[in-house]
C-alpha cells in the first residue's frame, strides 16, 4: 500500500509536469492575447504593450515556463492576469463548491446506478430490466445543460420546491442540501446511467461464475448468494467505472456550474480559458488532474479491500 502511494505520488508529479507543460504551451500557441482582454476594446497599442510587459508575456516561452514551474514547486501558483488575485486563493474559494457538487453527484450516480443495475441484472430480460436499461440509456443521452434547464423550469420555477441556483449555504443545512439537489441530479444522471450499465453487466457476468454455483451447491440462501457471493466480486469493475466517471463528472461541472450559477472551479476554468488567464487555467487544471489521480488512487486502495488478490508491491 505504501509503495502504491509512493508510486502514484511519483507518477502524479510526472503527470503534473506534463500537464502544466501541455497547458502552458497550448495557451501560448492559442490565438488571443490576455493583455488584449484586460485592456478591453478601448486599449491602445501602448496600453496593451504595457500590460504585456507587466505580465512578463514578452519573455521567451521557456523562460516563462521555467519561472512558472520554479514558483509552482515552491507553492506559488502565480497571480491571475485578470483579477490580480493569487491563483491559489481564487481556486480555494471555489474548490469546496465544486467538490460538494462532484461528491453529491457521485452519490446520486452511485445510488441510482447501482440500484438500477442490480434490479435489471436480477430480473434479466423482464420489463423491469428493459425499463431500467431504457432509463439508463436515456440518462446518458440527455445533454446535461438541457436537463438542467428543464429541471429548473419544473422544480424551481413552476413548483418552487428548490432554489434555481447558487450555492451559498453550508452543505449540512437544509438550504445547503436543497441547493445541491438539482445540480447533483443534472450532473449525476449521465454517470448514474453508466454505472447502472456496468453494474448490470458485471453482475450478470459474476452470477454465471463457478463460485456462485458452488455457493448454490452449498445451499446458501439466494439472498446471500447475491449480497455476499456475487456483489462483492461484481463491485470491482463497478468501482473502476466510478473512478473513471469522477473525471467525467469533473468535466461536467463546467456546464452544470454555469447552468446553476455555482461558483466553482469548472466555471473558473472556462472563464480563465476565455480570458487567456494562463496562471488561472494552469492552476485549475492542475488541481483537477490531481483530484482525478487521487480519486483513482483511492479506487486502487478500495480494490485491495474488496479483492484480496490485488496487492501492490
Amino acid at each position, binding site marked *: 500500500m505504501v509503495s502504491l502511494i509512493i508510486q502514484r505520488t511519483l*507518477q502524479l508529479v*510526472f*503527470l503534473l509536469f*506534463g*500537464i502544466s507543460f*501541455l*497547458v502552458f504551451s*497550448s*495557451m501560448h*500557441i*492559442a*490565438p*488571443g492575447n490576455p493583455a488584449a482582454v484586460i485592456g478591453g476594446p478601448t486599449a491602445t497599442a501602448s496600453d496593451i504593450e504595457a500590460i504585456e510587459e507587466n505580465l512578463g508575456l514578452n519573455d521567451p516561452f521557456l523562460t516563462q515556463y521555467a519561472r512558472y514551474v520554479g514558483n509552482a514547486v515552491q507553492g506559488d501558483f502565480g497571480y491571475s492576469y485578470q483579477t490580480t488575485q493569487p491563483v491559489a486563493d481564487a481556486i480555494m474559494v471555489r474548490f469546496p463548491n465544486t467538490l460538494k457538487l462532484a461528491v453529491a453527484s457521485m452519490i446520486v450516480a452511485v445510488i441510482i446506478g447501482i440500484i438500477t443495475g442490480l434490479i435489471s441484472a436480477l430480473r434479466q430480460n423482464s420489463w423491469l430490466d*428493459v425499463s431500467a*436499461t*431504457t432509463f439508463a*440509456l*436515456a440518462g*446518458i*443521452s*440527455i*445533454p*446535461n*445543460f*438541457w436537463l438542467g*434547464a428543464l429541471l429548473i*423550469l419544473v422544480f424551481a420555477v413552476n413548483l418552487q420546491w428548490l432554489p434555481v441556483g447558487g450555492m451559498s449555504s453550508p452543505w449540512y443545512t437544509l438550504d445547503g442540501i436543497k441547493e445541491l439537489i438539482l445540480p447533483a441530479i443534472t450532473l449525476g444522471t449521465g454517470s448514474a446511467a453508466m454505472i447502472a*450499465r456496468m453494474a448490470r453487466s458485471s453482475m450478470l457476468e459474476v452470477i454465471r461464475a463457478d463460485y456462485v454455483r458452488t455457493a448454490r451447491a452449498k445451499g446458501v440462501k439466494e439472498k446471500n448468494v447475491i449480497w455476499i457471493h456475487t456483489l462483492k466480486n461484481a463491485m470491482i469493475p463497478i468501482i473502476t467505472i466510478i473512478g473513471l466517471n469522477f*473525471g*467525467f463528472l*469533473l*468535466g*461536467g461541472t*463546467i*456546464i452544470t456550474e*454555469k447552468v446553476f450559477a455555482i461558483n466553482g472551479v469548472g466555471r473558473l*476554468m*472556462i472563464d480563465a*480559458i476565455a480570458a487567456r488567464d494562463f496562471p488561472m487555467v494552469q492552476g485549475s*487544471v492542475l488541481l*483537477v*488532474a490531481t483530484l*482525478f*489521480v487521487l480519486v483513482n488512487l483511492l479506487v486502487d486502495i478500495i480494490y485491495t479491500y474488496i479483492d484480496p488478490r490485488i496487492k501492490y508491491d
Partner: protein
Amino acid sequence: MATVESVKTKDKKREKYIVTTMKRLFKNKLAIVGLVIVILQIILALFAPFMTAHDPAAQNLANRELPVFSDGHWLGTDNYGRDVWSRIVFGARISLVVGITAVSLGLIGGTILGLLAGYYRKLDAIIMRFVDLLFSFPGILLAMLIIAILGTSLVNVAIAISIWSIPTCARIVRGSVLSIKEKEYIMAMRSMGASDLRIMIRHILPNASAPIIVFATMRMATAILSTAALSYLGLGAQPPTPEWGAMISQGQDFMWSAPHLTIVPGIAIMLTVFAFNVLGDGLRDALDPNMDLQE
C-alpha cells in the same frame, strides 16, 4: 484417415461471421430499435435535400418562432424564421459527419497507441503515461483547450473530440492486446516467424475489433453529445450551420416563448445518442462469444 461428420449441422455453421453477429443482434429488440434509428438518420443525412422543401439557412423574419404543426413548417420555425424540420434534417448530416470523423480519428490514434503499448512492453510505460496525462484532463476542458488553439469550427470540434477519445480507446485496445498477445495463436504466429507488424495487423487487430466496434458506436453517442456541449459553450458549429447542439443552446433563450426550439433538437440528440448506445450494447452482446449458449 476417415473423418466422419454430419453435414447437416455443419452447414448451418457455415455462415459468415458477420451474419451470425447480425442474427444475434436481431435477437435484441432494443438493438433493433437503435439500428432503425441509426439507419433513419443515415437516410435523412444522405437525402436531406429531398426531405424538405426549405433551405435550412433561409430566413423569414416575418415568420419567426412559429410553433410546431404550423402551415408549411410542421416542426415550426426558429427565431430567424428558419424551418426547424429542415434544420433537423440537415443537422443529421452534421451530427453524423462530426461523429464519424471524431470517432474515426480517435480510433486511429487510440488504436495505434494501444497496439504499440500492449504489444511492446518497452513502449508501454511511456505511452500509457502519456495516455494518463490526456485522461486526467476532463474531456470538455481538453476540447476547449484544443479549440482555443485551433479556432472555433466544426472540423476543430471533431479533432478536439477525437483527441479526447484517444486515451479511452488506447486503454481498451491495450487491454485486449495484452490478453490476445498471450493467446496461443499469437505464439504460433511468432513460432512461424511472422513479423511483429503482421502479427499486430493481421492477427491481433481483427481479434480486438469487437471492443473497438462497441467503443466506436458508444463513442458516436458521446461525440454527438460533446458537440452539443461545446456548442452550448459557444465553441461548436459556425452559424448558421444547423448543428443540433447549437440549435438547443440557441433555443434555450426561447425556452419559454418557443419551447420547441429546444425540445425538437433535444429529442433528436437523445434519440440518436440512445440509438448508438443501444446498438453498441447490442453489438457487444452479439460479438461476445460467451453469449453463444444464452438464449
